[in-house]
């Protein structure tokens, strides 16, 4: 991929994100009330979209082939435990990632 293609991809992604960020401001400009259905989606879509993204992150993990997703499983448990314990986002992310790097490089 050339630097130019990279630049185009970044520009396209930026344009796409900007468009979606600003569309709600144009569509719901405060003059009319936001439709109830849209308001409902605003409340419920967050959890579902995050759930989808979590699954997306684990999409390439194979349970049948060695190491059977064990590094991912162990590191995720570490993340959840760290986060329930300290509630510190950076600590949980760093702890889980370091654990994963250590597992895939030195253990499995």
């Amino acid at each position, binding site marked *: 991929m050339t630097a130019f293609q990279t630049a185009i991809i970044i520009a396209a992604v930026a344009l796409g994100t900007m468009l979606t960020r*600003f569309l*709600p401001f144009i569509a719901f400009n405060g003059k009319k009330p936001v439709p109830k259905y849209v308001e409902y989606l605003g409340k*419920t*879509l*967050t*959890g579902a*979209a995050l*759930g989808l993204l979590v699954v997306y992150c684990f999409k390439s993990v194979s349970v049948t082939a060695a190491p059977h997703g064990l590094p991912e499983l162990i590191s995720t448990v570490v993340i959840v435990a760290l986060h329930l314990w300290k509630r510190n986002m950076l600590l949980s992310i760093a702890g889980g990632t370091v654990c994963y790097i250590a597992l895939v490089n030195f253990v499995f």
Partner: protein
Amino acid sequence: MLKALKAAFPKTIPIMTGFIFLGTAYGIYARSEGLAAAEPPDDVDSGKFYFWVTLLNQAYWVTGAAIGSLAGSFIGFEIKGLDFVMTALLVVIFLDNWLKEKNHASSLIGIGAAAVCLLIFGSSSFIIPSMAVIVLLLTVFRKKLEKAVDGK
């Protein structure tokens, strides 16, 4: 120039659809209650205030993506397993949201729909079916979920 654009665009379609879906959800969220932490001063128009909050947040995001991409092309070596940082980030955000929400139905729908679609459609093409199933389920169970979300 145009040829490169034509070559690049198809490669961005998965990211585009993902971002449009996420971006729309985020936009609605920001519009409805997500920016509760930021309150405009009394003498500032709230619409304009939230417009600038969104624009600034957007600028950080774009800057970050550009820095990351450029830095990535300069770093010659690879740390095996470093990409797990993305998974860790999303697990933490999901968990944070899970601890905050009164009802877990929507989160469970997201995980469930995505997992089922992953099994059916495979890892390279399950995102769009998952989004469709999620919106469908949220729409079908709206009455029940609306009550549950509002804690009534």
